[in-house]
């Protein structure tokens, strides 16, 4: 069991309320999509969950318990939007991934674990010795995913992980995320501004507007019968082909 619960979470920057009593549940082994425009608080919610942003109210619980903020075991991991700034440009890929492994390993075990993780995200293990600058955007995002998985998380948060990538790569990364989530039975909070992407990846969806969750439910339900005006606007604005 690994259920992530945001319980009335509020965050302030100075006097501005960025998150206003947000309640959201990511059920065990499920994918919840989080959509909303820039500035609606999606990323802040992700950063609050991993402890990068202090809460001004509410609680974030994993299986009913507070998340550990100290020590090496971190059951909640985050994959960032920009694979160009989320990897240290002076650290090799292998080193970046190894750093997130929570327990001490012998040299051989460490190398084996790096190989396993890189293979898990369909990367050639030989690139463990490369620097990020030698990889493409899509490959970097795979490394970022491998690093997040190195922490053996129970819940993964993916914050706009495809929006900095070329379309041709986006599909591959989405496939990989879906596949890994199913294989490892992870609970996944998938943040995106793109409803079509969320529809493809998630089983549940939550819509944020100005720091509040205004609508949530199963994807098919919300997309077919949106209740809130803003959700209808969002749906109407998705360009391209539509399902009938």
């Amino acid at each position: 069991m690994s259920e992530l619960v945001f319980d009335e979470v509020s965050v302030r920057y100075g006097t501005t309320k960025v998150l206003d009593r947000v309640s959201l549940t990511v059920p065990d082994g499920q994918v919840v999509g989080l959509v909303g425009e820039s500035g609606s608080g999606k990323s802040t919610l992700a950063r609050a969950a991993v402890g990068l942003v202090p809460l001004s109210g509410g609680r974030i619980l994993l299986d009913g318990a507070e998340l550990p903020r100290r020590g090496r075991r971190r059951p909640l991991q985050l994959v960032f939007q920009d694979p160009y700034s989320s990897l240290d440009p002076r650290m090799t890929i292998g080193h970046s991934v190894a750093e997130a492994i929570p327990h001490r390993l012998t040299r051989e075990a460490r190398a084996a674990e790096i190989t396993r993780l890189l293979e898990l995200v369909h990367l050639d293990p030989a690139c463990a010795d490369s620097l990020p600058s030698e990889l493409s955007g899509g490959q970097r995002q795979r490394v970022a995913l491998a690093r997040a998985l190195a922490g053996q998380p129970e819940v993964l948060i993916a914050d706009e992980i495809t929006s900095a990538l070329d379309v041709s790569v986006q599909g591959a990364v989405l496939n990989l995320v879906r596949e890994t989530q199913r294989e490892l039975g992870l609970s996944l909070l998938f943040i995106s501004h793109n409803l079509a992407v969320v529809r493809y990846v998630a089983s549940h969806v939550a819509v944020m507007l100005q720091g509040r969750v205004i609508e949530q439910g199963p994807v098919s339900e919300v997309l077919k019968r949106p209740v809130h005006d803003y959700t209808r606007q969002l749906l109407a604005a998705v360009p391209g082909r539509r399902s009938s």
Partner: protein
Amino acid sequence: MVRRSSRVLRTPVGVVGLTLLAIVVLLTVFAPILWQDRADAVDTLNILAGPSVEHLLGTDALGRDNFFRVLVATRLSILLAVCATAVSLVAGLLLGAAPILLGRRAGRLIGAVVNVLVAFPALLLVLFFAVIFGVGTTGAVLAVGLAGAPVFGRLCQTLVAGVESLDFVAAARISGVRRWRILVSHVLPNIAEPLIVNVTIGAGSMLLAFAGLSFLGLGVQSPAYDWGRLMQDGLSGIYTQPAAALAPGIAVILAGLAFNLTGEAFARGFGITRILGFPPVPAVASPGTPAEPAAADADPRPDTVLDVHNLHVSFPGATGPIRPVRGVSFRVGRGQALGVVGESGSGKSLTALAIAQLVEEPGQVRADRLHFAGQNLLDGSDPRPRGRLLGQNLAVVFQDPMTSFNPGHRMGPQLAEGARRHQGLSRKAALARAVDRLRAVKLGEPERRARQYPFEFSGGMRQRAMIGMGLMGSPRLIIADEPTTALDVTVQQQVLDLLAEIRARDDAALLMISHDVSVLAQVCDRVLVMYAGRVVEELPAAELWTGARHPYSRALVAAVPDMATDVDAPLASIPGRPAGPAEVPVGCAYAARCPLADDRCRTVEPELVADAAGHRVACWRADETGALDPAIKIDEVVTR
């Protein structure tokens, strides 16, 4: 790093700095070994003698040779300056890294203290610490070092804060990496370059501060001597024997210059990112400017706004010209909307820039034909009428509306500027037109908006204003390069609607570049698919999902999920990397990533061939792609 260092060596500043530094280092190491005896030899017969062949700079009160004393003093002077710099650096690093090591709140407090200390004159701090630590060498090192700490602390704070805000530090933190480790393995390596530069320059001023302290009698004490001490000794005889005081002074200046110039050269070296010294592009005769086929082929239809034939853009590269655009041809008629889609590096944006005449040196634009509104844009004559033609009839909308405006000017005058230049309007008339155009792009309260600065506009509003700027003339063509990529979906829709409305109202043509096929499908009549600098397919936008014949177009369309995508099947993706403009392969550029590629594809580049309906495709196996289900087959290739 190595390449940059060697480049540093080659600049005049670098050569002088490093030569001086080498001399200083050699003297530091060898002078006391070679000349200690001669510097300490007391010659009572030659007290306070003037310069002579035997004693180049004369002798001091005990008859010791001034010249050798200056040389020998190099070691102590330099070592003390280096020690003091080290003290400064360590203290500065600790102060600067406080936010990481102690947490945010304590870090902020220390930051405030550092900021106050920086405001104190450094010399005052040196004297203050010198009194505390007492007269003598150790005291002076600590005094000079600690007095320099606030400056280094401030520098480190800024550098550390810059790196600390990056995602990889956050990622390390989330993984539970300890603070100390984050500092050592992530932060320090990434601030090392600017820090080294500043330390080198800092060492120069430390040297000066030290000489000053010894000169005042607070630093090195007899019988030890550094340059400052020698200056003080020589001062009493400055009128009778100036060399004794001036020589150590000159030594201080030269050593200081050695540090400063070297630091300066490295600072410049690290700042340069482009490799200079391209070989010149071989002069290519502009192909077919007056050539027969091009002339014969010229478009007879009068309502063609843009007619591009065989457009090339090239840049000089280290091993020969790089050609990001290789023979692009298309036409846009009045009121038509043409979309251009492709991955980054496909040459789509450069094609647009070339049409708008915005490709800068050393880029070269060539074409058999580049006609806009009936005029030849590549005509070598006077560029001014062309400038006016483009200024009045062409609107360009870029991706990032924030960087398209000057942040220091109000919006109204920025819009008006072009109209005053191209249409010869008065300031007042141009401003009135600007307000009117802001109204035309549906910005509320246009009069007030015109007086505001770009930062007061939201992203969507800036993009509207950018379009409004394009509408200052009466554009016959709007080139929009990823106009909505930086915007939210709902705002994107508004901007797309606005573009459609302008097209309908003014009968303007639209050339829209995007990586997102679904956006193009919504706005455009026809779509060009570009790959590795060439058009690989041109087809009606409505047929993107059903009628695309090039495997690349099909994969591109299938890779983007939309509201009709089958959620149970994996998305299509394209294996490998796009062919970069520097290494375009022979044959079809897409062959390496194509599931259908055979030997012919890998050796002979397919021509862009039109069918009866005007659907153009450049693929040897275009007739077979119907059998290819991109969602399944291409993805099978990916996982290999």
